């Protein structure tokens, strides 16, 4: 039972981060029908921005302000940096290609991805950055927390999970309960019709990038609170986020949330439970199992769990 609880907590932590990344993909795809492959590298920039702010605040061992404030400031700063980066990327890499064939912005997105990874290495070097919050009060954030059965759910994981869910709720509110959110939904449904109704499409698209990139920044911090980062981390993180978005049905906000969690739980349970003398071990071959399940899922539900079937009027 303890192992199950531990793996569930692991899956929830991983899945929360995947979900935040997936939301960025799904928001942009929903509005622009663009697969923003630079999104993983925006996440990476977020991890570095958070690291920089953490150092400015005195480092993890003896921060100048209370630790809860450190985590909030680090997260907000990373979100702000990534939001600004999202605006720049949209303005210079995607907007000029908005009416070009769909392959052009896709290539541009890949170009931005490499540009960001290489620029970051040029500016900050290839050395990994570790937030190393273990240094804070001799590992308090790792050792204290919620006791469930024989398992301690450390404070750091609780912070990650709660923060991710709070951000998802805020996003849901923004998209469903505000005027701008309504404009986003309208643009996503039919861009031309939305423009004819007086919606400022450029503004909506910029806002979408701000929102998606800010979530990537938050995901970057949530990820790096526990794991070191480096300039090439964006590729794998972006890939996982993209897959989570596809599982949920790309373009669907609840889908991205659920897709992220499914991916996190699948990885965790497969690594923890799949082993035996006659089958490939789950720790070694987790990707094989996870992606086999996902292929099967796609075969039975092409549009993902929450996606709408692509019905065209002929």
């Amino acid at each position, binding site marked *: 039972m303890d192992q199950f609880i531990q793996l569930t907590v692991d899956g929830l932590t*991983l899945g929360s981060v995947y979900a935040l990344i997936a939301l960025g993909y799904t928001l942009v795809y929903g509005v622009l029908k663009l697969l923003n492959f630079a999104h993983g590298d925006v996440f990476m920039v977020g991890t570095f921005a958070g690291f920089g702010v953490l150092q400015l605040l005195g480092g993890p061992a003896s921060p100048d302000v209370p630790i809860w404030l450190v985590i909030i400031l680090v997260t907000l700063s990373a979100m702000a940096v990534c939001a600004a980066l999202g605006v720049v990327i949209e303005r210079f890499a995607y907007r000029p290609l908005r009416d070009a064939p769909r392959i052009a912005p896709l290539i541009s997105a890949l170009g931005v991805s490499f540009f960001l990874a290489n620029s970051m290495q040029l500016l900050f070097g290839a050395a*990994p950055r570790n937030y190393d919050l*273990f240094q804070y009060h001799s*590992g308090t954030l*790792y050792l204290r927390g919620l006791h469930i059965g024989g398992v301690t759910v450390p404070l750091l994981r609780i912070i990650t999970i709660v923060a991710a869910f709070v951000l998802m709720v805020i996003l849901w509110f923004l998209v469903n309960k505000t005027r701008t959110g309504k404009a986003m939904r309208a643009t996503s449904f039919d861009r031309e019709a939305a423009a004819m109704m007086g919606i400022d499409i450029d503004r909506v698209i910029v806002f979408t990038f701000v929102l998606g990139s800010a979530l990537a920044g938050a995901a970057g911090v949530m990820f790096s609170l526990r794991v070191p980062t480096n300039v090439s981390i964006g590729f794998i993180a972006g890939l996982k986020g993209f897959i989570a978005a596809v599982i949920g049905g790309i373009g669907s906000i609840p889908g991205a949330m659920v897709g992220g969690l499914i991916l996190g739980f699948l*990885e965790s349970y497969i690594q923890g439970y799949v082993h035996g003398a006659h089958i490939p071990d789950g720790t070694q071959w987790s990707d094989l199992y996870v992606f086999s399940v996902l292929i099967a899922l796609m075969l039975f539900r092409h549009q993902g769990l929450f996606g709408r079937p692509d019905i065209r009027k002929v």
Partner: protein
Amino acid sequence: MKKAFVLALAVLVTSVVAASAQGSQTAAARSLAGFNCKKTITLPFVTPLTGGAGFLGAEQLSWAKYAVKTLAPGLGLKVKLVGGDTPSEQGPAPAQTLAQKYIGDPSVLAVLGPSTSGGVAASTKAYYAAKLAHISPSATRTSLTKSTGGTQYTGSPAFFRDVPGDYIQGPSDANFMVTNLHVKKVVVMDFQEPYSLGLASVVEATLKAKGVSTSHLSAPNTTTDYSAYVTKVPSDADIVFFPTQKPGDAQTFAQQLIEQGKKAKVFGGDGSDNAAQFKQSGSYVSNFAPDITGIPADAKLIAGWKKDNPGKAVGSFGPPSYGAAQIAMTAISRACKAGGGSTTRQAVFRTFKKVSIKNWILGGSFKWSTKSNDPLNAKFYIFQIQSNGSYKLVG
């Protein structure tokens, strides 16, 4: 249609055979082509400069650069050091591509690297065909220089290394665990790439032979969060042998062990030796090089390197790279002298094994083993990480 297909296939096969024959002739011809030693020699360093292990390559390159700057003029050479990037995430393929590039460049008389064992295994046959010697300061897989215990020789006579191989590291680590730490249960991990697979298998075999209970976990090289693996570590395990090339991951694993209340300590190989990134108190690290800051004869050299690399700390991957560059340039210089001002790749290759260095950067002197292209009497050093993050020599 069938005839056309057979004809096309025949033409294709003939072309490939002809091209490969032409290629090997060209490589052989290049190995004998004379090179005027007054010209600038290109000395490539094949190492990860980007990606997760990029920081290691950067450290290695900075020391090789310092060796070129300080030693080349005294050896009568004009040397241009160039970096060849082999990101560890891309596997051995970039090392193969770079080998072809350097073989095709007549100003290359020797090559530093590849830094990784996988890169060496993938490219050394091509270097040998061109009689182009290459020396690695960090590729430690045993089979690259010899075949032992049923393992197949995957190297070539053109490959040299100035650090000892895993045939010393693996047993050293395992023996230390048994003799000094009195371990009963050890979890051995690998990361599904050549470096860790080789080292893990040697350590596991040695431990088993000594009656220690072992279990094995294998994680993809792209893993960042090890929580699920930590869950599988038995609560009574004494050590987790963690031969990663990403020291930050060793730190994460050690912290996640504590997070889950496991008593096991992390024992890293040479790839995790980095005091800035792996600093969890109580953990162990083994490495092929001592901490050279404790060698009085290196004080001037270290000061010079630090002047060129302000703010950088002396790690353990850099100094053997300085040594590798020193060996390569010494071999080129001697071959040039023997050839009266000109030389060939083949002459440099033959001279490599004759090089010995009196004041070796890693302490004492450097000589080659007569049995393989490994250093003579080399050993591995084992450190324990202290509460202040410093590495204390314990074995």
